[in-house]
């Protein structure tokens, strides 16, 4: 962002004669300066740059590129230094501040020779690893230093396999600092992995975004590790750096990094997001998510297919929906029931939802809409809504389950929240059993975001949401939908990373874990048939232009994923047939 600002100020400088610089123009000057020199061809007053001269700086036009480079380096250095570091600069007296080139150079050399300075080598935060990365350039100049190990700013001290590969000799550590593709005056003893020698006079360009992409991931990981070890100052420095690196990225990577950085910052500063946000707001967000990408549609269609097959011969059916929201799942089911050979059954729906802050009866409104639809297509319909802040508060007796009806229980992304409270999920599962359902359909995220260690959860979540955001990138709907979907996912990220205890409700678990839980609770798996698979595949094929989605069958459950990564799973269950 700083760069953009400089950019605009640099462009402004070309238009006005009296530009205002609030920060030293850095990279923006670089490209512009060269053009300028060519176009200007002006060499008044000893070849000094005219515009800067107006401000009071004397810089030779020939030196412009060089000065720009140095300013860039200075910016990087100052950007990552802590405040203590900058105050050290005040010791030097600058006699000729109009000699921009001179004082920048002296600042740089001063920062290099300062004692007990934090390691301020630009993106030093990225641990140097990379035996696998052959394109990395390593420059060991006078600026890289070995600092005291007990300095809290010595970020090399962050241990961990996450950040560094284990076998690392100390001599390598100093020199294997990853750098921007910059060149600094002298490359004394530079160690280069790639064959190319960095050209000292090459003008600065923006960082290679692929390099910063990898740096970004590593910085995030290092930050998470620091957080896990309660090393909050280091984490703070790192999280700020993530912001800098993220700005150099584009697309999904940038968004994911931004959300994760924000969540980490919240965790560090203990500014926890309010969890009592309006549930209608989260419903709206989920609607946008529904419209942008196929995950929820997939969930609905596959669950409906399982329910339809279970209800094949029933004349009265009762569906209990653990999270009614806008009721988007049920029109399709009602339509399929209406066109069932032999006519539709009597359809009863019980919808469960959280309490509304403004006391509107959202459930009844949805029920009313569904009732209108039912009347239109000729299905006998009955609706009941239950307001409950937690599924564990529900008692099966409240639901008035009648003798002659076939019951289905449907839960889309509702069960993982129960894991935040001890015993809640077991209570709910036993309630489900008491309802004697013919089928239980469960849709959950396929990820383990509920491990005991923060770093593991963080890593998992980073991979999961990266894939998810990636899949959203190709979506070609209205951009507002996309933004809202991202906000929806961003809130989940925030919850996984920043919250703890009862507040952390996004406790996703993998299919294997859910299977274990269901099996021990007394449920048998029901295989989703080929109809569900076909419908799901067709549905995905409809999402034009985005061909990364994959439907996979996993022992009777259907998984929807992006390329090789499964993201959500639909599974169906029935009561274990031991008692009857």
């Amino acid at each position, binding site marked *: 962002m700083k760069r953009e600002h400089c950019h605009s100020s640099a462009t402004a400088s070309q238009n006005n004669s009296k530009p205002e610089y609030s920060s030293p123009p850095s990279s923006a000057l670089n490209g512009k300066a060269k053009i300028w020199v060519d176009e200007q061809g002006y060499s008044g007053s000893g070849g000094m740059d005219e515009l800067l001269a107006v401000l009071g700086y004397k810089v030779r036009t020939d030196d412009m590129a060089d000065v720009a480079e140095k300013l860039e380096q200075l910016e990087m250095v100052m950007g990552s230094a802590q405040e203590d570091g900058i105050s050290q600069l005040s010791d030097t007296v600058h006699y000729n501040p109009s000699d921009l080139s001179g004082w920048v150079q002296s600042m740089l050399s001063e920062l290099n020779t300062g004692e007990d300075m934090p390691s301020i080598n630009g993106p030093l935060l990225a641990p140097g690893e990379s035996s696998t990365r052959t394109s990395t350039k390593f420059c060991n100049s006078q600026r890289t230093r070995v600092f005291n190990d007990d300095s809290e700013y010595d970020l090399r001290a962050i241990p961990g396999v996450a950040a560094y590969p284990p076998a690392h000799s100390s001599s390598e550590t100093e020199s294997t600092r990853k750098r921007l593709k910059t060149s600094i005056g002298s490359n004394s003893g530079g160690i280069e992995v790639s064959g190319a020698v960095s050209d000292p006079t090459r003008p600065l360009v923006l960082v290679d975004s692929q390099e910063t992409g990898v740096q970004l991931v590593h910085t995030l990981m290092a930050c998470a590790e620091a957080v896990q070890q309660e090393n909050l100052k280091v984490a703070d420095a790192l999280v700020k750096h993530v912001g800098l690196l993220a700005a150099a990225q584009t697309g999904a990577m940038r968004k994911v990094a931004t959300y994760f950085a924000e969540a980490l910052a919240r965790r560090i500063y203990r500014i926890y997001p309010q969890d009592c946000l309006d549930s209608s707001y989260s419903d709206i967000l989920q609607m946008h998510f529904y419209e942008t990408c196929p995950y929820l549609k997939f969930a609905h269609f596959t669950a409906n297919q399982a329910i339809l097959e279970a209800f094949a011969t029933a004349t009265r059916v009762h569906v209990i929906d653990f999270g009614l929201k806008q009721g988007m799942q049920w029109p399709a089911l009602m339509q399929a029931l209406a066109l069932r050979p032999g006519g539709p059954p009597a359809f009863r729906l019980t919808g469960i939802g959280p309490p509304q802050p403004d006391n509107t009866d959202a459930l009844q409104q949805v029920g009313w809409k569904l009732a209108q639809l039912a009347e239109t297509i000729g299905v006998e319909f009955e609706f009941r809504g239950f307001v409950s802040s937690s599924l564990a508060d529900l008692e099966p007796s409240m639901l008035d389950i009648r003798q002659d009806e076939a019951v289905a229980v449907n839960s889309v992304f509702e069960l993982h929240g129960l894991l935040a409270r001890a015993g809640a999920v077991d209570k709910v599962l036993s309630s489900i059993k008491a309802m004697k359902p013919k089928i239980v359909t469960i849709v959950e995220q396929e990820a383990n975001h509920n491990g005991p260690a923060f770093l593991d959860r963080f890593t998992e979540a980073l991979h999961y949401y990266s894939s998810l955001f990636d899949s959203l990138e190709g979506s070609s709907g209205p951009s507002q939908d996309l933004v809202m979907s991202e906000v929806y996912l961003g809130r989940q990220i925030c919850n996984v990373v920043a919250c703890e205890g009862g507040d952390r409700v996004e406790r996703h678990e993998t299919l294997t874990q859910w299977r274990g839980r269901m099996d021990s609770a007394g449920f048998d798996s029901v295989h989703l048939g080929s109809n569900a698979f076909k419908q799901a595949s*067709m549905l995905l094929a409809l999402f034009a232009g985005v061909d990364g989605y994959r439907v996979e069958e996993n022992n009777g459950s259907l998984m929807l994923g992006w390329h090789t990564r499964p993201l959500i799973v639909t599974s169906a269950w029935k009561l274990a047939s031991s008692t009857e």
Partner: protein
Amino acid sequence: MHQNQNTSSQDSKEKRPKFFINDHIDILVEILKRLDGPSLGVAACVCHLWSTVARNDTIWEHLCFRHVSSPPPCSVRHVVVALGGYKRLYRVCMRPVLSRLSDSDMVKRVWTRDEIQLSLSLFCVDYYERSGRLGAGGGGDASASSLMFLCNTVNV
């Protein structure tokens, strides 16, 4: 000579009765029933009469189920009509679904039951969204946003 031409043209006129398609709506309907979607759309632009005829839902019903291997059950018509009619079904669901899912010429291929079921489900979702959106009346033609993904152009 002038007179000769007149009499000869008059003779030919008398021998051939005038035929005006607009006088025979039933034949027009039969012809339109056999057109494909885009052609039907073009036909609807010919004149007021054709436009009215083309709006006839049975023509679109024929279009929707023309290439189905087995005829749909009669209950389907009631549901489809209630949800907005065959013309809308074709425009909003079936045409995009089929054009996305088939590589070859859409007209000739046989539509599978699954595709029809999927189209009908999406159609129902469309109705539900519209009915929720238009609390106080409004254009029934607004396409539901959850089906927007169907309207997007395909990268061939």
